[in-house]
């Protein structure tokens, strides 16, 4: 009997001991040199470009890998990365001149065109089962006349191909050697050409990046970046205020931001990161009527709501595209808050005493404060909005299938053409694509295709402008508000530029003495 | 204090001791001005019913009361030192050293998770200033003295490994080992069987005498008092109502309460035709202020003065005092009482019709370790119409199992039971045998409802009839068990048993949970009912005197067998089986003269475990006259012979 107990005890002790060993080994031995501690808000899910999900993982990958092009941290424009230059005449055949003297992390050798070809083929290969395969589906052929020249042939003109090959998802270049060595552990052994490489990771508590000494732009100013996983927002804020972390990745609670700002922390942020739109399903009879859609737009005072809930995180917005996009236009019909007009429109549309509809939401998120206000405002014009809460996977599945009266979507993409195509082109109509409004307007469709093929920026812009006007006029999608991303940090942490993919290039970040 | 007196020197003098319990429903004056003295080496018996304050008084002396009990007044002079004024610390030098204590329930009075050695040795070391080894030797010596076999081994035992009797012996050894001047024994034998009781009393008596310690012996059993006390203090409602030398108290009691108490106990010679004198009513509720004599409501001789003022203890000649206004208590009242006390009790003559018949009845319980307990081991018995059969024996002799089988609560392992008509039961503990959530009415009516006899109205009538039949107010149907006294509950139990007018009523220790004064009431009730209804009774008890008084025939059981059977008087007058004899000898008789004449050699040893029964005579292990033959072959009992039967080779 006593014997049993002793055995049990012994077992646990050995377990404890062995574990401590494991931990002490795996815990990073931080050398001298600058170290930046960053709050990371969820469990890392791996960094294999072919199978990467969720912004926080993408941000790590963004600093490990490089693409042919990348986004300028401040302006958000496409700028050269692994490709020093490119040329195309018809948006169909693209020729890239590649950067020389670029090396992969650790000792995985120099970067050449072969790596690009390998990376893209890997994505396209069905065996990889990469969700991003479709992005590169347009590539018909790739050739490298010499190690630093790459010619890519597309099946159709695509003026936005530079976005496709940017340092993001399918665009990130991997090393064949590394991939083959890693086997099914690619996601944990990412080898790229970026400014930082992954030194160690404890999936349940921290990720440690070390700078890539041979980075082609020269070594980054900060030697070590430690990402501490802190899930709870309140705790993260306290951690920053305690000085336990230098930088908080994505602080998205207004009240915390207020406190931090008041205490003099730098509120690194990007405005209009993405817009939230209400998708109205025309198969739900009232929403088939443009008048009703306009009434919906007039009924809710997004200005004051955003002001009330989170003035720093959100602002009202009236378009599917965002002001910083090159094809954006402000010259479109707008729907100001006007309950009377809303009522009038409803009468005109034949709904004098309103109607009831269901807004699809996730039970994980619950009924957001914004939605609670929406309910309130709509009820004042006689429209009764009910929330239909389902668990997240079901929500995604139903939203992708277009099974809802109304559902909202966040449009995170730097590529306006992609947004417009996927939300307005009949080919992308749900369930095949994201066109949840089932919008099929030949005029718009033609404009879109023409614009994409048009090499002349000016002409293309005109067409995109028209599209935006028509769509706003029809109130196809309910533009509600756009939101901003905040990475509050200590004042001495400089160069935190959040790009429009909500990502920070840590090469620019430094800590001032 | 009269120290100059050479022979007698006062050891303990208690003056006007007052103890109270502060309860939510009022202050209970448990001890209300008690004064007495104990001489060195003297044995004082404090007699009284439950609630008379006798235990509270005893506990007050060493301040062993727990909250909410509290000594509120009086002096306690031990050797002339007032220990009631001592601090806890000082008192601890008195407790266990000068005054030893033996408590009522040996089962719970020893620490269950400590070996005997630890519980015994340390006090001895402290009190006698001995080192561990000496103390150990001392402890073993005392264990031997109190009659614990192989003390060297048993001292390392845990309490749960010992029988009740053994534990009580240990308690005594613990109390005496420090050579106290005074031993306070609070009902030390109540929880034990007659034979064990006798042994314990004997041990206490001889050892205290030997050590010259005085003893204060609290009990409700007048028999025991007669057996060994020098002086007696009778307590009632928190006061001493009579005090004196034991002979005087028994010979000519002066207080009505004492007188009636003595009357309520059936004597060995008492005739069935005499009605058992009983004390009517109940003791007073101690939460209320008592004006006048506390006993007045139950006293036949009570008069105006008794109602008005409480009597003090007054001298009745040589050290005999009593608290009663009338000079000779009940005497007149009793004199007049005698007439209606007799009854037309026709002695029972069998008309041959058998109501209950048990043939070769056996019951075995399988314990976890595939061993069998032979609780009942081949019993043949008969009960005739209108007959009362008394079954006596120590606990574990199987008498209760027989009863349970009679009522179908247990299924016999072998043998058969024949019952003409229906058997009903009166249980030992009336408190437990009622569902607390049911009214008296429902309880009595339950048999009728279950058997769906009559309409609701009819049932109610029957119930009321039964309840008044057992001498209770029909209004009781409204009440709940906890609102009734023990005696009242037992009456209800009887009423319930009669509900289905059974042919035989089995009463398992029906009076053992009751106070002496109430006991007689129930016994009389049963006898009366038997006469009125002519039903048969099976009366199971370890109280031999009562059994003798109430039953026509007696069966003495030992280890699941009947060892002697016959007419009650005969068995008592001339017991043939050595066990029967031992039992009867063990019974304390409330008469100091008789007791003093008795040979003080109680039956030795204890009941052997029914797990491994001897193959010969079950009693051989304890029998003074056992021979090899006894151990070899089992003496048989000729079955179903109405005359005397004895299962002993040497029965003459």
């Amino acid at each position, binding site marked *: 009997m006593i014997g049993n107990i002793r055995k049990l005890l012994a077992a646990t002790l050995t377990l404890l001991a062995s574990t401590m060993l494991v931990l002490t080994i795996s815990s990073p031995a931080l050398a001298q040199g600058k170290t930046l501690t960053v709050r990371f808000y969820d469990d890392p899910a791996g960094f294999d470009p072919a199978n990467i999900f969720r912004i926080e993982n993408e941000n790590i990958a963004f600093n490990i890998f490089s693409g042919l092009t990348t986004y300028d941290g401040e302006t958000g424009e496409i700028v050269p990365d692994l490709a020093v230059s490119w040329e195309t005449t018809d948006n169909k055949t693209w020729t890239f001149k590649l950067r020389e003297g670029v090396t992969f992390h650790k000792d995985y050798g120099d970067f050449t065109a072969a790596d690009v070809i390998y990376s893209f083929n890997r994505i396209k290969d069905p065996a990889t089962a990469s969700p991003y395969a479709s992005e590169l589906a347009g590539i018909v052929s790739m050739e490298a006349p010499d190690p630093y020249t790459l010619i890519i042939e597309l099946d159709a003109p695509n003026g936005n191909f530079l976005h496709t090959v940017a340092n993001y998802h399918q665009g990130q270049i991997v090393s064949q050697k590394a991939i083959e060595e890693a086997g099914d552990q690619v996601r944990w052994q990412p080898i790229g050409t970026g400014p930082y490489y992954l030194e160690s990771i404890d999936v349940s508590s921290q990720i440690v990046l070390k700078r890539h000494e041979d980075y082609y732009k020269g070594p980054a100013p900060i030697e070590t970046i430690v990402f501490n996983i802190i899930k709870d*927002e*309140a705790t993260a804020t306290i951690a920053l205020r305690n000085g336990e972390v230098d930088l908080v990745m994505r602080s998205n*609670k207004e*009240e*915390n931001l*207020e*406190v931090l700002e008041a205490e003099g922390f730098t509120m690194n942020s990007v405005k209009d990161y993405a817009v939230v739109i209400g998708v109205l399903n025309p198969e739900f009879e009232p929403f088939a009527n443009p008048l009703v859609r306009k009434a919906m737009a007039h009924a809710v005072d997004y200005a*004051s*709501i955003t002001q*009330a*809930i989170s003035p720093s995180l959100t602002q009202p917005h009236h378009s599917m595209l965002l002001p910083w996009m090159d094809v954006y236009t402000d010259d479109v019909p707008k729907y100001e808050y006007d309950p009377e007009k809303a009522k009038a429109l409803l009468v005109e549309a034949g709904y004098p005493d309103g109607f009831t509809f269901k807004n699809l939401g996730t*039970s*994980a998120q*619950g*009924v957001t*404060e914004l939605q*609670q*206000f929406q*309910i*309130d405002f709509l009820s004042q014009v006689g429209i009764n909005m009910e929330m239909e*809460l*389902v*668990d997240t996977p079901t929500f995604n599945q139903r939203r992708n299938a277009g099974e809802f009266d109304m559902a909202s979507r966040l449009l995170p993409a730097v590529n306006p053409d992609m947004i417009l195509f996927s939300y307005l082109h009949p080919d992308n109509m749900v369930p095949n694509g994201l066109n949840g409004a089932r919008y099929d307007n030949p005029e718009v469709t033609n404009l879109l295709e023409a614009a994409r093929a048009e090499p002349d920026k000016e002409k293309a812009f005109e067409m995109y402008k028209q599209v935006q006007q028509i769509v706003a006029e029809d109130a196809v999608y309910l533009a509600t508000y756009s939101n901003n991303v905040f990475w509050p940090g200590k004042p001495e942490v400089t160069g935190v530029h959040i790009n429009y993919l909500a990502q920070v290039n840590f090469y620019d970040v430094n800590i001032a003495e | 204090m009269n120290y100059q007196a050479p022979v007698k020197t006062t050891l303990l003098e208690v003056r006007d001791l007052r103890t109270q319990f502060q*309860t*939510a*429903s009022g202050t209970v004056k448990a001890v209300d001005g008690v004064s007495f003295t104990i001489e060195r080496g003297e044995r004082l018996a404090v007699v009284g019913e439950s609630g008379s304050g006798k235990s509270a008084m005893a506990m007050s002396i060493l301040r062993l009361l727990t909250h909410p009990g509290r000594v509120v007044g009086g002096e306690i002079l031990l050797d002339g030192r007032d220990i009631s004024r001592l601090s806890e610390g000082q008192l601890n030098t008195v407790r266990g050293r000068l005054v030893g204590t033996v408590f009522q329930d040996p089962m719970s009075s020893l620490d269950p998770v400590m070996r005997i050695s630890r519980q015994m040795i340390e006090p001895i070391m402290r009190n006698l200033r001995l080192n561990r080894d000496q103390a150990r030797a001392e402890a073993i010596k005392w264990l031997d003295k109190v009659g614990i076999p192989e003390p060297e081994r048993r001292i390392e035992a845990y309490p749960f490994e010992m029988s009740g009797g053994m534990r009580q012996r240990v308690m005594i050894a613990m109390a005496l080992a420090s050579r106290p001047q005074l031993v306070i024994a609070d009902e030390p034998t109540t929880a034990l069987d007659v034979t064990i009781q006798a042994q314990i009393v004997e041990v206490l008596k001889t050892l205290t005498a030997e050590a010259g310690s005085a003893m204060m012996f609290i009990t409700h059993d007048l028999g025991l008092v007669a057996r060994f006390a020098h002086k007696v203090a009778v307590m009632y409602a928190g006061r001493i109502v009579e005090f004196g030398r034991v002979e005087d108290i028994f010979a000519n009691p002066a207080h009505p309460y004492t007188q009636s108490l003595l009357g309520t106990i059936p004597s060995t010679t008492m005739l069935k035709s005499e009605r058992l004198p009983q004390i009517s009513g109940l003791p007073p509720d101690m939460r209320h202020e008592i004006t006048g004599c506390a006993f007045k409501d139950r006293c036949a001789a009570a008069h105006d003065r008794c109602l008005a003022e409480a009597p003090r203890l007054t001298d009745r000649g040589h050290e005999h005092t009593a608290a009663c206004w009338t000079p000779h208590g009940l005497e007149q009242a009793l004199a007049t009482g005698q007439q209606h006390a007799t009854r037309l009790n026709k002695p029972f003559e069998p008309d041959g019709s058998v109501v209950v018949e048990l043939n070769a009845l056996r019951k075995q319980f399988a314990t976890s370790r595939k061993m069998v307990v032979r609780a009942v081991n081949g019993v043949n018995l008969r009960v005739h119409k209108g007959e009362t059969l008394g079954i006596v024996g120590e606990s574990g002799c199987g008498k209760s199992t027989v009863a*349970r089988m009679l*009522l*179908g*609560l247990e299924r016999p392992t072998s043998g058969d039971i024949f019952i003409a008509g229906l*058997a*009903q*039961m009166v*249980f*030992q*503990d009336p408190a*437990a*045998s*009622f*569902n*607390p*959530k*049911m009214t008296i009415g429902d309880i009595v009516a*339950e*048999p009728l409802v*279950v*058997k769906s006899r009559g309409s609701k109205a009819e049932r109610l009538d029957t119930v009321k009839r039964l309840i008044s039949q057992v001498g209770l107010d029909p209004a009781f149907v*409204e*009440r*709940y068990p*906890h*609102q009734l006294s023990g005696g009242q509950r037992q009456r209800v139990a009887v009423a*319930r048993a009669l509900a*289905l007018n059974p042919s035989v009523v089995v009463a398992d220790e029906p009076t053992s949970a009751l106070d002496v004064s109430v006991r007689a009431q129930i016994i009389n009730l049963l006898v009366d009912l038997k006469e009125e209804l002519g039903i048969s009774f099976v009366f199971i008890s370890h109280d031999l005197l009562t059994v003798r008084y109430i039953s026509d025939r007696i069966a003495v059981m030992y280890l699941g067998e009947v060892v002697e059977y016959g007419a009650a008087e005969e068995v008592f007058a001339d017991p043939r089986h050595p066990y029967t004899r031992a039992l009867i000898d063990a019974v304390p008789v409330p008469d100091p003269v008789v007791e003093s004449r008795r040979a003080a050699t109680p039956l030795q040893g204890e009941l052997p475990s029914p797990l491994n029964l001897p193959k010969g005579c079950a009693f051989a292990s304890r029998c003074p006259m056992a021979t090899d033959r006894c151990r070899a072959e089992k003496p048989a009992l000729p079955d179903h012979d109405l005359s005397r039967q004895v299962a002993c080779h040497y029965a003459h």
Partner: protein
Amino acid sequence: MTDITLTTTSAPKTGPFAILLAASRHPLLSHAKVRLALLILIPILVLTILAPVLPIQKPLETNLRAMMQFPSIEHVFGTDKMGRDIFSRTLAGVQISLLVGFSVASIALTFGMVLGTLAGFYGGWLDRAIMTVVDIFLAFPSLLLAIGLVSVMGTGIVPVIFAISLADVPRFIRLQRSQVLSLRSRAFIDAARTVDASQYWLMTRHIVPNTIAPMLVAASIAAANAILVEASLSFLGLGIMPPQPSLGNIVRDGQTYLEQAWWISTLPGVVILLIAIGLHFLSDGVRELLDPRSH
């Protein structure tokens, strides 16, 4: 004790007044703890019931011009981030929470009583079967059990009630079973068997009535805990969904503003505390009244 109960049982049972009188003399009310409990619970209940007619903002009504206001005459508990009146939300929350609490209690009570009695009374394979299942459920930490269930059934009142009950029922079965086991050997059961009463009779007339009181005590505690577990579930986003207020999610939502507006979560928190304390006192009182040793 005796005489107290006597007065109640002998009290005239005719006419509402007489009954009230009798009730007022009932030992329950004579008990300090019980009185205190009622003193706490009854006002809360009354307010909750009256909430709809009280002159206060409706629980769901937002007000952009009165956000995060400090308690005042107009808003007794102040207002929250969306300018909703916390007092009226709290009352609405109490409604929900009490609903949760008492549903859980009654579910646990019913199943615990039935299964526990069966297991304890019949024993044998039935007992073994029931207790095995009970053990299985007891092997989960109860919060995990609840989490698992809610993730299966989705959020909302019903799943929450169900989840919490599922954690409680096994405990109740255990309690009831042990009670039955100890009762089964009591003398009054034998007494009933001597007139060969049926098993059903024994269970319904003798066993169950004697088990109810302790079960009720347990139930009232279970109710109090249920309210808190609901709160914890809401914290993990598995409880009752806003805007539907429950004490749990009010406190949860409020806690993020603890620094800027402590009252949002503190005041409703105090209400939870009061209710639970009330329930505990009630059960305590009842237990003490039922415990023979206490009088």
